[in-house]
């Protein structure tokens, strides 16, 4: 049971205390929202977004007549340095049963170890089970980076 006195007089000290508590809470929660935003604004170290273009390697990384697998979006790609000094890049997913292909320096061809499928350096399927060629990619050398990009679609 409260007296008329209590309902009439709101304690100013209590109000100030609650006000500070509320202000502090609001400030702290605002900080907890600002913190992720500030972290978000800082670009990550890996600036490449995948998709169309990717840095497949560095000049000098590949010996002539060899190849390496690199990640292109969500699938593997094959970067090759031929004996003619030319870089070439193909999709590394075999069109037969999706094994990952590799470059065979001894044959100067692309080979799938799973069922002996053979492709030439332009990705054309030459022999064995693969029914379709490998997709070709464009390769450009920029500085010491080897950039592989998908061929433009309509």
């Amino acid at each position, binding site marked *: 049971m409260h007296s008329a006195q209590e309902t009439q007089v709101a304690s100013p000290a209590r109000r100030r205390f609650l006000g500070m508590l509320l202000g502090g809470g609001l400030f*702290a*929660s605002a900080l907890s929202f600002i913190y992720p935003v500030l972290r978000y604004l800082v670009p990550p170290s890996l600036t490449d977004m995948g998709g169309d273009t990717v840095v497949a390697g560095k000049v000098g990384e590949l010996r002539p007549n060899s190849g390496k697998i690199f990640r292109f979006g969500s699938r593997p790609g094959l970067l090759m340095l031929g004996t003619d000094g030319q870089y070439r890049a193909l999709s590394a997913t075999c069109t037969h049963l999706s094994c990952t292909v590799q470059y065979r320096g001894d044959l100067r061809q692309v080979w799938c170890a799973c069922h002996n499928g053979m492709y030439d350096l332009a990705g054309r399927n030459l022999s064995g089970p693969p029914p379709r060629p490998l997709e070709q990619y464009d390769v450009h050398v920029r500085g010491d980076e080897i950039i592989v990009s998908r061929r433009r679609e309509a």
Partner: protein
Amino acid sequence: MRLNRSLGAVLVLAAAVTLTQGQQPNSCVDCHSALEGELHVTPEQFAQDIHAQKGLTCASCHGGDPSKTDESAMSKAAGFKGRIERAAVPKLCGSCHSDPGFMRQYNPSLRTDQLSQYQTSVHGKRLAAGDTKVAVCTDCHGVHDLRPASDTRSKVHPLNIATTCSRCHGDTQYMAAYKIPTNQFASYKTSVHHEAMVERGDLSAPTCTTCHGNHGATPPGVGSVANVCSTCHVFQAQLFDASPHKAAFASAGLPGCVTCHSNHGISKPGDAMLGTSAQSVCTNCHTQGDAGYKVAGDLQQQVSGLEASITRSDRILNRAESSGMEVSQARLEQDQARDALTKARVSVHTFAAAPVRADVDSGLKITAKTFGEGQGALRERDYRRTGLGMSLVAIVFVVAALKLYIREIEKNGKSGS
């Protein structure tokens, strides 16, 4: 009856003659399109025939004179041969098809050795010995609506070959005298090769003629059937040849490949074919205690171990993904682990533990990594949930503080002082 038939023929002939004024006279089809049964050949049917399209006519094979509309069309004088005897069919077809000089004007790249191949085949040899039940050219290729093999409607298109062969070879009554099995087509229909062709549309998948030859059709012998398989399954054959099984099978008179995988009903091989269980093929020869038995068990354990490890990683990545974590990098690496499993399943054909272990170990290294990545994803998820929990605490605090503050300032009423 005969009067009716002749009358009918004459009427049709009259109609056809009036209707076809101006076209090349072809009294053969004019009559034969009205006849029944074996004698029934229509112009529409013959128009589909590759020979007709190249300009050949009935007279090219059967002789006779298509410009005459009476009985003289089928006279001996006109060179009429009538119905070609089965035994004479290969020679007739070969009279053009084995002549390179003649065939050159139609398609220089067409082979011209079909007749000589046929003569080496079981069908050819039996025909020469007087058996007319065996297949001749027209049985497989058709006769009056003959299409090139590349045409999907052709009886010798890769998709249709097995059905064509089984018309005789699957007919138990027809084949009763020959004492060879008639279940080949039924078995083949259950095989992976059939599935590859019919369901996956892979026309390079083997059908009857791929292993048996087409014109020179002969079953490969016990010693040579493995050579047939090895034309596609190169690695497995090479490894087998270097393995102890090659000599062992040869001395036991067992064919390579077929002994474990069967010839017509080749089903998808499973890891259960290894090992020492009831479904294993190894226990057909090996018994407990011999060296091979131990290796069999080891191989099975290795390969199924890798498969289980891949599944384990897949499962944790699925869990992470369904909680909203992005795991595409790990999925890519899982593909490499699956490549290793494929390779391991090839290297079992060495029937030795070491090469298989090498492949399996490379796969296990990858699955260990992807499993770790899955665990990392789940840890990240938990970290996010903890962060959320903390921010929820802060939010609840603020909401409570608001409530108290509101109550405090409204002690004197909501409309203000």
